[in-house]
């Protein structure tokens, strides 16, 4: 009787036998996968790009493992692409040309909390929200809170210099990473930054944060821990016009108030999230503004009243204060799951991440609706209004012929409109493969050339996440160096 399933059956080992054998010898058999199922899944992240091709996948457990993997990949002439939870929306973790994929999900230990330095040392696979929950009983949290914080990892946050609703007051990831141990593209290990207030020399840590895996792989991260404010007030304001919401945001900042967060959702988004969370979002408003202030008890009430008054001046039809923590959490859950919730309307979405000057918010928003209408696609707007970071979502059904072209055309116009208003390409999602082509709209040849020099000083042979960020004309001709798609792949 055959009790063991699959025994004796040939496994689908995939190509790259020699490379895989070396990797397995170095870090262990159970830490290397190379079958077609694994390769297919790790060819994708949360973006719309489906032309990635993964090589062997490694699950290192230590800095030494990562170092070994990188050195073996170099020896075999292969590139290396790091990956966290794969929730990126710009294709930063999409492997191009069958590189070795380094999944850091098993390096997920919280190593040490240093109360004196107010720093926590973590491995890159620690989930953002897990870290905050771990710190909560101590009265601290990790401030950057991307909408995907329940799943995204610290390593991914570092690589993308991620933002989040509460980065308005607390600053984005770069502010909160003070040191990182990294494995450089040649396999050398270096410590960038440090716990001292003023580390010596150039701020290479600053260069590395936001590098999207093109400068190396962080294996230990020193993150700042932020004391949690004793009081929080969350306001929900409804508007009959999305421009009124945008103007309220500008007016609040102009009045000298720095809320912890200010987020706007338009009607389509609000309806989709309300259907999922049942948080009491007004589905008849053209836009809602979620504003949060935190600090000392008396201060937050004063700020909340001031924000409410400004909202009413700007035409808010309703101003509501979240009654308790439960309502507050539900409102935030709605905001943070907005991207996923749109699947109730259409199965696919494509979004941009441009940042425009706050004063231009209303104007650029109006343009996004016009542009989408001209191209016959639906746009939904949900954005970090406080720092002018737009997230126009173009939603569609990829099964409809020709729709992808229209979506990309509309996306390109939205980007151009944002840049024309004095904005930049990406607030927090990174450039990845998605926005590469737009880099020339924002930067001159000279700019791009200097960025490439920085990159090449870390990675002279273009082995680290090649084909990303810098447009190919301005990067080392990295794609040509890559191995062609191996035989036997079915994706």
């Amino acid at each position, binding site marked *: 009787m055959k009790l063991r399933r699959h025994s004796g059956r040939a496994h689908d080992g995939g190509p790259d036998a020699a490379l895989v054998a070396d990797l397995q010898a170095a870090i262990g058999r159970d830490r290397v996968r190379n079958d077609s199922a694994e390769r297919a899944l790790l060819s994708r992240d949360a973006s719309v790009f489906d032309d990635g091709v993964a090589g062997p996948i490694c699950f290192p457990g230590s800095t030494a493992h990562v170092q070994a993997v990188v050195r073996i990949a170099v020896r075999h002439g292969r590139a290396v692409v790091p990956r966290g*939870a794969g*929730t990126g929306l710009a294709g930063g973790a999409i492997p191009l040309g069958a590189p070795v994929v380094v999944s850091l999900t098993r390096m997920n230990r919280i190593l040490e909390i240093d109360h004196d330095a107010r720093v926590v040392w973590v491995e890159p696979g620690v989930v953002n929200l897990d870290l905050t929950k771990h710190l909560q009983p101590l009265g601290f949290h990790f401030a950057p809170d991307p909408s995907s914080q329940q799943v995204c990892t610290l390593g991914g946050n570092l690589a993308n210099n991620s933002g989040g609703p509460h980065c308005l007051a607390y600053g984005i990831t770069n502010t909160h990473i003070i040191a990182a141990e990294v494995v450089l593209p040649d396999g050398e290990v270096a410590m960038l930054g440090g716990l001292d207030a003023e580390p010596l020399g150039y701020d290479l840590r600053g260069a590395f944060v936001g590098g999207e895996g093109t400068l190396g792989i962080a294996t230990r991260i020193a993150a700042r821990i932020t004391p949690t404010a004793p009081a929080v007030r969350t306001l929900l304001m409804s508007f009959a016009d999305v421009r009124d919401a945008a103007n309220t945001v500008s007016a609040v900042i102009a009045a000298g108030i720095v809320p912890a967060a200010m987020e706007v959702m338009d009607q389509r988004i609000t309806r989709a999230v309300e259907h999922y969370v049942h948080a009491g979002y007004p589905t008849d408003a053209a836009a809602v503004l979620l504003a949060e202030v935190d600090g000392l008890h008396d201060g937050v009430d004063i700020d909340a009243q001031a924000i409410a008054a400004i909202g009413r001046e700007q035409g808010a039809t309703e101003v509501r204060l979240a009654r308790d923590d439960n309502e507050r959490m539900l409102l935030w859950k709605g905001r943070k799951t907005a991207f996923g919730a749109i699947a109730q309307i259409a199965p696919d979405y494509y979004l941009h991440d441009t940042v425009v000057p706050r004063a231009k918010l209303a104007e650029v928003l109006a343009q996004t609706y016009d542009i989408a209408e001209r191209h016959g696609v639906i746009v939904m707007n949900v954005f970090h209004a406080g720092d002018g970071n737009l997230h126009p979502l173009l939603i569609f059904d990829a099964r409809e012929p020709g729709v992808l072209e229209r979506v990309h055309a509309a996306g390109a116009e939205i980007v151009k409109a944002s840049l024309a208003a004095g904005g930049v390409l990406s607030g927090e999602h990174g450039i990845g493969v998605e926005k590469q082509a737009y880099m020339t709209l924002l930067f001159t040849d000279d700019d791009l050339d200097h960025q490439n020099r920085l990159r090449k000083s870390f990675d002279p042979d273009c082995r680290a996440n090649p084909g990303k960020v810098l447009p190919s004309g301005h990067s080392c001709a990295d794609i040509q160096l890559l191995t062609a798609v191996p035989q036997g792949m079915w994706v």
Partner: protein
Amino acid sequence: MDLGIDADELNTCVQCGLCLSACPTFRVTGDETRSPRGRIALMRHVQLRDAPLTPEIVQSFETCVQCRGCEPACPSGVQYGRLIEQTRTTLARTHRSTPRWLRLAYIPLARPRLLRAGSVAIAVAQRLHLVPTRLGLSVRIPLRQQPIPASGSDVYLFTGCVMDAWQRDVHLATQRVIEAAGFGVTPTLAQAPCCGALHAHAGLTDHTRRMAHKMMAALRPDMPILVDSAGCAAAMKDYGHLLGTPEAGAFSARVFDVQQWLAQHIDRFPKVAPLDLRVAVLDPCHLRHVQKVHLDTRVVLRPFVRELVELDDDGLCCGAGGAYSALEPALAGQIRARKVGSIDRARPDVVASANPGCSMHLGAAGVPTLHPMQLIAQALPGRRPLD
């Protein structure tokens, strides 16, 4: 290969990945092939792109605990349970999974006398120390079953298969508690020997349908059916969908988790001194993610114990998963280790779990676990000491 999944249902997933942290197998492996997003992508590869059904893909589907923790985490409302159940059904039908020896093992579940005989054999083996501890069988199976006589016909108590053979003491406690609220109880016993939940998990949905028909024919149509096993109640509440008939829908509407039912009648209990215990509530997945009535457990339990504490893992599965802990012991053990960590941080005297599988799985790791009904029965007057 056509897995038989509805194309629209398969398309609702946008691959955002917000489910990953809610998936116990991804949590312990960090591997996309062990995640809901990955499994759905593989379903698409197989059904829509005609990718070959490799052993690795079958394994990806088989390692799913089917806890359905990903469903509440999904903002797109993907009905993952339906997707994996259909996939497992197709795999079983085409003999890609659920091998013959496993199918044989499911036969006694619907045959009470055969199950009883087998259980006695295991009970004897246990007393002769012939059952290896690595099998994780944490309950001491009784050699002789205590009688469980009917006390009236206000409600049914569904007794089921393995639970009745191995843990009738839980049913007896449940019956006492229901009686204390003033209801006469009819245990279903051989009239409705098995709900078919384990079969449905293994993709043997035809068996489940047969059992559903049998149970619906056997039970009176005017009595509520109370269930003290979260997995069984979830399966019986799904008969309406499984059979697709109005009768099945009406039957499912009469099925209640026992805590869910008693929460409506909490004022009928006598006032008693609470047990001097700090109790951590462990939510069985099919109570929390599928039936979504886990809060009722707290309502019912609160008056009877000194202190109720919550676990800090957002209801992540414990790895029991019906027969999962026996079929995938390595993964089930890793998943359980996470849960035990969470329990340790809550520092309870005892854990309350309303599902027999979870209790046994945790018991095997040395965690003292009782059914909420056992705790309440303890607190009620005329109590018998727990063994």
